[in-house]
């Protein structure tokens, strides 16, 4: 058996404030039926004033550390597209708020695929750089970048975070990360973007530069690319680790949209019962989506020791990624309980 990074803790956290479809229908031209039919989403969580992405990351990270029975790690990685600030990275603040000042900490940016990228980097720090433990967090607060008048994006996205703790181990153990697939296609950059606010915007020669500060997504090509690429990436990892879809107990994929998940399952010849869904309660939480779903599945008893699990995501960039593991025996707290709640202000 070869050396491997092993998942030894998991946790998820969503902010306490819920926005239902009915709430959105009060201010936008939409309805519960319209949103549920097109997305499968019933409600989503959003941060309150005073919270930021680090708030979610700290709470999810704390739960993952508790699940692992650890109070220290050798590195903290935060995957996010909505950092607290464009500079510095969010991870050092998160590490300090977790009582881990001095620990290596950095962000990874790959939008909705970010957690898969961060997980791969964390695994590499263990297997290639000799670190003992790494906390990998996916966290996003898309409510802060959505156009308040856009019914489609406001219906889809919510705020949330999830995290896992990795430790050094071997490939035969439950929890071992057995294989990854990562990829990108920058020619699709415009399909999922926040055009304004970056260096391209700041150096623009037009006055004023016509670059939206809000998140935009071109739904039709994104749907098409997401279904095809999620399935292709999943197939790649399954082949790499010697599994077939018949071996899979649970696909924990990016909670983009129920129609994408169903189409992806169909393409993989996977029964819908093998596809975990929590977007009905949390919406699409971007980089938080996969680890939040993983922790949620474990907390709800949908994952048991030894289960063959495939993680898969597709997102802005364009980027995509997948990973395979056998689930370990873990105690994972429910993602919706609001305790502990640490805001940026109260924990700084």
């Amino acid at each position, binding site marked *: 058996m070869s050396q491997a990074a092993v998942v030894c803790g998991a946790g998820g956290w969503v902010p306490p404030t819920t926005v239902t479809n009915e709430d959105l229908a009060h201010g936008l031209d939409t309805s519960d039926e319209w949103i549920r039919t097109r997305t499968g989403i019933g409600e989503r969580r959003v941060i309150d004033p005073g919270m930021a992405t680090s708030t979610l990351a700290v709470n999810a990270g704390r739960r993952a550390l508790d699940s692992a029975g650890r109070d220290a790690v050798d590195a903290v990685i935060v995957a996010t597209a909505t950092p607290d600030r464009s500079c510095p990275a969010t991870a050092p603040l998160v590490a300090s708020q977790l009582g881990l000042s001095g620990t290596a900490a950095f962000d990874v940016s790959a939008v909705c695929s970010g957690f898969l990228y961060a997980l791969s980097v964390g695994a590499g720090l263990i297997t290639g750089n000799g670190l003992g433990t790494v906390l990998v967090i996916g966290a996003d607060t898309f409510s802060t970048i959505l156009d308040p008048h856009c019914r489609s994006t406001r219906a889809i996205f919510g705020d949330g975070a999830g995290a896992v703790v990795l430790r050094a181990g071997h490939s035969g153990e439950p929890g071992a990360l057995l294989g990854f697939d990562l990829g990108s296609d920058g020619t699709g950059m415009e399909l999922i973007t926040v055009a304004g606010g970056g260096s391209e915007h700041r150096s623009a020669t037009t006055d004023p530069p016509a670059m939206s500060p809000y998140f935009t997504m071109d*739904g039709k090509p994104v749907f*098409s690319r997401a279904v095809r690429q999620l399935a292709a990436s999943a197939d790649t990892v399954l082949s790499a680790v010697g599994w077939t879809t018949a071996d899979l107990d649970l696909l924990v994929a990016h909670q983009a949209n129920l129609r994408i998940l169903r189409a992806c399952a*169909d393409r993989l010849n996977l029964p819908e019962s093998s596809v975990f869904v929590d977007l009905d309660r949390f919406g699409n939480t971007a980089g938080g989506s996969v680890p939040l779903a993983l922790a949620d599945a474990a907390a709800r008893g949908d994952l048991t020791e030894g289960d063959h699990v495939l993680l898969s995501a597709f997102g802005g960039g364009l980027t995509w990624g997948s990973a395979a593991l056998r689930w370990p025996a873990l105690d994972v707290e429910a993602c919706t309980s609001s305790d502990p709640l640490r805001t940026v202000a109260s924990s700084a």
Partner: protein
Amino acid sequence: MTKLQNTLCELASTNLQVDQEAIAEGRTFEQLDLDSLELIEFVVVLENQFAVKVADDEITPDFTVTDVAKLLETKGVAS
């Protein structure tokens, strides 16, 4: 109706929740009130079912099930 057209009616009915008779009557996808994402969903279903490649813009809102059958036949699917 050909066997392929019947299969397409069943697939559209099952996957897009539209009335099978309305499809069989020759209504276009636009007349069936399918949105652009639903057309893409149907493209994905067709790719899975018939093991062919179909570009997103090959099936348009003005297509009927007969048009889809013709397209698939050009890709080697038996009628």
